[in-house]
């Protein structure tokens, strides 16, 4: 009897070990399955695991804003618009709010653009507040939980802190009314005021058609060691350096500008996507905020991302094992970047490339239209599904109020 118990135990151990890193021969390249901490969650299908009710807000919150400025569909914050469109036609949508697990409020807070195309966050808190007032007065579901089973998309620089300058964002903190809701945002940094526990981090929007239009044959040899295109000094806002990117981008430039292995410059080449496909490593340093669309581009083009942003929380961090896919470099280690990169053993590099070649990995970073299984929309729904079932304690007793509706700067209280 004991002998069989040991055999069974040994079998379980073996199964556990063998599950990790099973190599399967794909059509074009041997890829490795991404086994996240919770198993192969990237391939989960959310349909049937949750129900989402979409509030019908007047079009001044969504359609009219988009009509005023259609550029919102192409910038990196377009996820809020596409998520709305996806949910309207998705099988997880339910028209009966009584059976919904999650409630979605379609308000486009990041669509007030400057002539240059950058979103201004000054009216966003008022817009959000006005939307929440509307849903709390027209439906009983907000007051039932004070938003604990509602989710909002806040893809702006510092999420629901609604400001582009970090100090001001920290001062404001997350909008009081959203303190109990789940936030789906691109910003993620550990121990930061603007990252709430339980938020879902998503990648910034990158237009998939543009990406697929620039693919080159897979047998093109990767001949660039490290690739980066972008600013090192933000001369307009921080001429001396040291503020922008916490000095990390400037350090990269000063240390490696004459290094032949580092193809870094501030150019805007037309072959940017093609060059990324010819590079082994792509730098993804922080800018004014720690996240960047470069991560998405690097993953889709098979270039190993080098993430230089202390304490950053990467998209879908609970489903994707970023430590195994990318290389994390502390900001204080930037002067030693070349030593760090050349001391990575080639087998590790090849394994990272195999993980990146996995189509589920690339699909999870994109927002294709129409939605495809495994893409970022589905990963968001998977994340929401993983938070179910809701704890009993979120349901408040009738008349109980936890949120302070008048907290925050006085300017936020003006109606929108």
């Amino acid at each position, binding site marked *: 009897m004991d002998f069989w118990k040991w055999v069974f135990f040994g079998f379980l151990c073996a199964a556990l070990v063998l599950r990790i890193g099973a190599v399967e021969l794909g059509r*074009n390249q041997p890829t490795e399955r991404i086994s996240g901490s919770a198993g192969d969650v990237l391939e989960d299908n959310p349909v049937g695991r949750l129900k989402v009710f979409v509030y019908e807000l007047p079009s001044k919150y969504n359609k009219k804003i988009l009509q005023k400025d259609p550029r919102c569909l192409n910038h990196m914050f377009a996820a809020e618009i596409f998520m709305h469109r996806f949910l309207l036609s998705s099988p997880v949508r339910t028209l009966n709010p009584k059976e919904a697990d999650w409630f979605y409020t379609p308000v486009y807070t990041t669509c007030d653009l400057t002539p240059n195309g950058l979103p201004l966050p000054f009216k966003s808190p008022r817009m959000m507040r006005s939307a929440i007032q509307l849903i709390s007065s027209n439906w009983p579901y907000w007051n039932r939980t004070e938003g604990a089973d509602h989710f909002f998309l806040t893809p702006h620089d510092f999420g629901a802190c609604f400001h582009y300058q970090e100090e001001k964002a920290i001062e404001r903190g997350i909008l009081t009314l959203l303190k109990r809701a789940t936030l789906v945002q691109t910003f993620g940094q550990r*121990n930061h005021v603007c990252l709430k526990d339980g938020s879902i981090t998503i990648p910034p929007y990158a237009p998939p058609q543009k990406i697929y239009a620039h693919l080159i044959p897979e047998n093109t040899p*990767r001949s660039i060691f490290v690739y980066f295109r972008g600013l090192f000094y933000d001369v307009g806002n921080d001429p001396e350096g*040291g503020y922008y990117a916490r000095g990390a981008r400037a*350090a990269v430039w000063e240390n490696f500008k004459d290094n032949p292995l580092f193809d870094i410059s501030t150019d805007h080449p037309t072959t940017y996507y093609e060059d990324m496909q010819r590079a082994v490593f792509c730098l993804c340093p922080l800018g004014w905020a720690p996240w960047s669309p470069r991560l998405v581009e690097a993953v889709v083009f098979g270039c190993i991302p080098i993430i230089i942003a202390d304490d950053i929380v990467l998209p879908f961090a609970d489903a994707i094992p970023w430590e195994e896919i990318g290389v994390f470099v502390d900001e204080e280690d930037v002067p030693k970047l070349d030593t760090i990169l050349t001391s990575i053993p*080639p087998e590790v590099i090849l394994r990272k*490339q195999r993980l990146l070649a996995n189509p589920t990995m690339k699909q999870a970073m994109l927002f294709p239209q129409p939605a495809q299984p495994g893409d970022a929309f589905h990963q968001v729904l998977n994340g929401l599904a993983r938070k179910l079932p809701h704890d009993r304690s979120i349901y408040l007793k009738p008349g109980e109020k936890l949120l302070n509706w008048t907290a925050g700067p006085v300017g936020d209280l003006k109606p929108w």
Partner: protein
Amino acid sequence: MKLSALQQSYLNRRSNSFRGSAQLDSAADGSVKSPAAVFWLVLHGVCCLISLVLGFRFSRLVFFFIFSTSATNLYTAPFRGAAEIASHLDVRSTPVTGAADRVVVGRHGIRIRPWPHPDPVEVMKAHQILERVQREQRALFGVKNPRTVIAVTPTYARTFQKLHLTGVMHSLMLVPYDLVWIVVEAGGVTNETASIIAKSGLRTIHVGFRQTMPNSWEGRHKLESRMRLHALGIVREQKLDGVVMFADDSNMHSMELFDEIQNVKWIGAVSVGILLHSTDSSATIQREGEEESTPMPVQGPACNATNKLVGWHTFNSLRYAGRSAVYIDDRAPVLPRKLEWSGFVLNSRLVWKDVDDKPEWVKDLDELDGAGEEVESPLSLLKTTSMVEPLGNCGRQVLLWWLRVEARSDSKFPAQWIIDPPLDITVPSKRTPWPDAPPELPSNEKMSDGAQTQDQQINKHSTKTKTPRTRRSRTKRRHDTKVIGVQASTLSVSEQQN
């Protein structure tokens, strides 16, 4: 006067500010104000003074040094003065965020290592990583199970042989697959050819063919076909396994050709670009005006829309009828055959004896040996030409070029292109190429000098280039720009001093 007025106003301002702070101080004593607020006021005043004295930037730097907690600064010496000032001011710092291990908002230093330049060891390691990654890419996306390439080259010793063979040799040396090079030489094996192909480092099979190469193109094409068949016989004898391609010594091959021929199953055809160098182009242009548009000079398989072989693009030699070269050194366009051998590749097993899985549409090699008629192309090996596989995107890619360039039949060239002993033909030059040469010596002395230099040359005849330089160093240092002149006129110089 003005200065003093300025000074006066400055003093007034200074005293005003102090009076102001003194007033505040008294006010502070009167009201319930904390000493910390007073302290901050005093600090403010001091910093204003520092600003006036040292300038705006330095005071900001002082603030930076006081308030940044986690920055490690590598600025150089002049700034350390500010740091000392900062250390004297004992101020409690207030970080913007709370805990010590959090990332701090604010100005940080730009970290630069002491010698921010590439380290050669790192660069080599990075190149090794790149090499490994590219090897993996080739293994994944390149050809799986690459077969040996068997290149068949018919050649014979002549002026242009070294030019052509060097080109083919370099192309074959770049091929990333295993290679066997079968060189068949008309007129028997010579040292010339052997020395050229020995430098390749490839596995070569050098055989001689009994006949010498005739002087007419007709004869040459016929003999080359027979030499190629002889090479196929060697493939059969030695049971060489791989893909047989015909690399004529004056053709130019692209690297994609060798990747593409790995895909052949039994027999394949590629498109060959035909390069004719026509000497009297003016005459041809006039005639072209009457005909239809010039046909493309490409020979190879022709496919229909579904990528199936339906025919052949062959060379139309009617346009050049009567004007083409007959003898090898004619100054007229050299025409290819209808279909050149170099456009075909075979699986070596097609010529093997007693192989079970040989397809039934292929004839045995022995049948062609004794054939009276000429074998024009490998298609004669097949009973039906429909089984030929079109390669290179169904013939749309031209993967090699056919060219025939030869020298006059009476052209002499130094054996193995090494000048030893010096040439008999003398072309005396009236003027030396360089201005400050020593004056012409009388003839008898020239003879002895000539003998000396001849001995020197015989001793140092390893490479042609060394001798002129040593002689130059004996006489005088010349400009480097004259080197070209030296090499071109070594003969004239040596003859001059003879």
